[in-house]
């Protein structure tokens, strides 16, 4: 008798577990459904554009995919492109999730890069110290840059949305001055001296010439993944992560519950800025090895976008950053092999974001479609209806 009851209770438990897992999975599916639909819609509109400029969209998308994920080399290029975006995406996600609007990831990225570059070329140290110190300098540079808007909000009550945007410009011009004057190496180009060998992040080709031939993919990807795992752990398993999440979900509730709002805000901002800065220095030490004025732009903004694409979750934005990196690698390859301007791909990316933001449009379409059905079920009903055989509908 007792064994029977335990058996049924186990059965019950496992069926409940199963239900719960199913619920979570369907939740996940539901969440990513928006993204998938947005990507599909963007691909369709992108196809129209390609047809207008006289390209076969199927060929373009095939080449895009091949150049992003289709070969070992493509994968390494994607990896190299995705590495900085993972940092900036995580940086953005931390800020978003903590309820802080850090639009200054861009500036923090480059300030971190220049700070790390300086430590990288100015000192002679053994690698075991030099590399970590350079990385630390990047982290601190980014955090310090993020501290300026933080301070302005705490002391003067100025919204960080405005100040983080403005500090991006200041960062760009400050670095321009630094690379043109005090840190300039030769009169010919506005660039800093090259970083010491001891401060460089090895590239895969350095380790094995056959591994990632013709790419600049570097071991910085492991630092990026470590950051992903650590922040994921913080959010899920620590008190700090709990405070961050709660403040992000409801500031008023958190304040009522006794969470120190100032501390959380400052902490979220500094860590977000630090990770952006770390991304900057990793990019320099792994790929460029010196700071050329205006060597690139947009890492921060792309990170913001990847974070949005990934639903602001740590894992989601990491996947989105890799996807974004793949698109970039693919676009690059396209440009080389067929001469299709990569701006076309940028447009597709823009369209993806646009269609994600246009969720209201989905439910609007949905409502039109289901005029006599049940409104308010969103995309799920829309999709369900699409896949339901007509016959069934008649019986309903």
């Amino acid at each position, binding site marked *: 008798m007792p064994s029977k009851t335990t058996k049924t209770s186990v059965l019950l438990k496992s069926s409940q577990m199963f239900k*719960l897992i199913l*619920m979570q999975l369907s939740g996940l599916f539901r969440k990513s459904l928006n993204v998938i639909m947005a990507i599909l819609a963007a691909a369709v509109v992108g196809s129209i554009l390609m047809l207008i400029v006289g390209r076969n969209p199927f060929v373009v998308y095939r080449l895009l995919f091949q150049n992003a994920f289709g070969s070992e080399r493509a994968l390494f290029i994607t990896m190299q492109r995705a590495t900085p975006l993972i940092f900036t995406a995580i940086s953005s996600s931390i800020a978003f999730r903590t309820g802080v609007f850090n639009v200054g990831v861009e500036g923090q990225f480059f300030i971190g890069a220049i700070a790390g570059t300086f430590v990288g070329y100015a000192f002679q140290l053994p690698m075991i110290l030099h590399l970590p110190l350079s990385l630390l300098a990047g982290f601190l540079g980014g955090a310090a840059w993020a501290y300026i808007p933080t301070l302005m909000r705490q002391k003067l009550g100025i919204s960080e949305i405005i100040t983080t945007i403005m500090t991006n410009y200041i960062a760009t011009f400050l670095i321009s001055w630094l690379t043109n004057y005090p840190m300039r190496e030769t009169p010919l180009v506005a660039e800093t001296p090259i970083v010491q060998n001891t401060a460089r992040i090895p590239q895969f080709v350095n380790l094995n010439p056959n591994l990632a031939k013709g790419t600049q993919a570097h071991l910085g990807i492991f630092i990026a993944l470590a950051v992903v795992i650590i922040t994921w752990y913080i959010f*899920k*398993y*620590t*008190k*700090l*992560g*709990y405070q961050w*999440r*709660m403040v992000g*979900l*409801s500031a*008023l*509730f*958190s*304040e*009522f*519950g*006794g*969470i*120190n709002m100032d501390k959380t805000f400052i902490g979220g901002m500094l860590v977000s800025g630090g990770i952006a800065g770390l991304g900057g220095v990793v990019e320099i030490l792994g790929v460029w090895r010196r700071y050329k004025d205006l060597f690139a732009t947009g890492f921060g903004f792309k990170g913001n976008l990847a974070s949005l694409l990934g639903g602001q979750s740590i894992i989601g934005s990491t996947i989105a950053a890799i996807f974004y990196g793949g698109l970039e690698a693919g676009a690059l390859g396209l440009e080389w092999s067929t001469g299709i301007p990569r701006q076309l791909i940028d447009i597709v990316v823009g369209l993806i974001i646009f269609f994600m933001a246009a969720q209201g449009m989905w439910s609007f379409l949905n409502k039109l479609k289901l005029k*006599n059905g*049940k409104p308010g*079920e969103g995309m799920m009903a829309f999709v369900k209806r699409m896949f339901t055989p007509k016959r069934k509908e008649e019986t309903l």
Partner: protein
Amino acid sequence: MTYEIEMIGIRKEFPGVVANDNIDFAVRKGEIHALVGENGAGKSTLMNVLFGLYQPDAGTIKIRGEEVKFNNNLDSIAKGIGMVHQSFKLVPSFTVAENITLGHEPSKLGFVDKDAVRENVIKISKRFGLKVDPDSRIRDMPVGIQQRVEILKALYLLSDILILDEPTGVLTPQETDELFEVVRSLVATGITVIFITHKFREVMAISDRVTVLRDGKWIGTKDTKDTNPKELARMMVGREVLLRIDKTEANPKEQVLTVENLKVLDNRLQEAVRDVSLSVKAGEILGIAGVEGNGQRELVEGIIGLRTAVAGDIRINGKSITKMSVRQRRDYGISCVPEDRYVRGVALRASLEDNLIIENYDKAPISKGQVLNLKKIAQHASRLISEFDIRTPSSKVIASTLSGGNLQKVVLAREIDARPKLLIVAQPTRGLDVGSIEFVHRRILEARDRGAAVLLVSAELEEVMSLSDRIAVLYEGNIVGTVKGGEATEEELGLMMAGITDEGEDQRDSHSVEQQVSQEV
């Protein structure tokens, strides 16, 4: 006989619930028909079907004997149905006249004809005897008058069937009486009124007939004069309910909370709490009665530390906590059930587990060092869910999926489980149904009997009177009187809430109050 409204066999299903299950509902012309039921019984759904906001899955609607089909609320408005929602839909920065005519403004050459707007509003307000000043702005008006504007807005669209969705929730007893007068005068002009409520006093006071819903089903329709609150409660809940909770005598012990000459500012930096002194002993409930907006919110937020005290002192067991942070005060033994449950009480987008640990996430066994113990968090949540009978499919769902009553249980569970020395409960049963109210009241009494000092703030006079051992009345930031719980009458408290004290001194004139305060200071 033809009814004014006839709803036959109405069925409305939402994913996972049948909100209305074969409901028949008929209203006679010129009557006041009360529609009662617990939250989730299907009242609002039924009315939204009648108002054209939802389309029923089955059933027919007849207006004056003629079968109709509403695709949206414009169709129902065209048939003369008007609805006053629970939360007002007014533009605070617009004038009364602008609000009433919004969307249907008389125009001249494509511009809004402001004079005609005013005239129309004056005309309609005269016709129905509802006095309002067409030029004053909504944000400057008390809620009672705002509601009058809402009613006028419906009447302006030529409604002769008026749905009032829980109209008294935000009113004082006096304002409620005024509303009743208004409703009666409207009915006298031939208008039909459907009155949604879950207060029996109101059903008995105003309605001609009453229909009870439970779990989406029609339970019964009665002539009001043939029924009584006890019977209605039984119909609503499906079992016997104690309308007034039995409680034992308080057994007050040492003084826990002492507030001395407290002064707190509101968001506009006006003195909301002017000079409040009070004390609560362990094992007693001090009720704070008063019309909302007389400093209750600021008083509570001042005590729990969300607002700083500009003057005065707050002590717990003799130790001053005036300078402490919210966290420190919580750790010192203060818990609070806040009045805005959806804003302060829970994080709607967070899971129940996360919502239930905000009080103790930094203490063992929930966390150790920096690390949270997810297993303990889940156990903690399931224990509270079963102890407080929170109806939820799982502790992992986000709070917004729960009903209002269950959310309040989440808040109560968390705050009472902390075993506070001082428990503050603000508007603990607002918007809850009879069954939940009984539950909440029982828990508050249990906390008292366990030795907590309880400060109860409520705009619901009945609640204050049935729970409190002592009652203090707050008016314009001052305590205008304190009475013993058992001895107070509704009339006496009502007068004090309006600022009229025994000395016959009318404090409605705010100047005299200010003078009085400045003299005291």
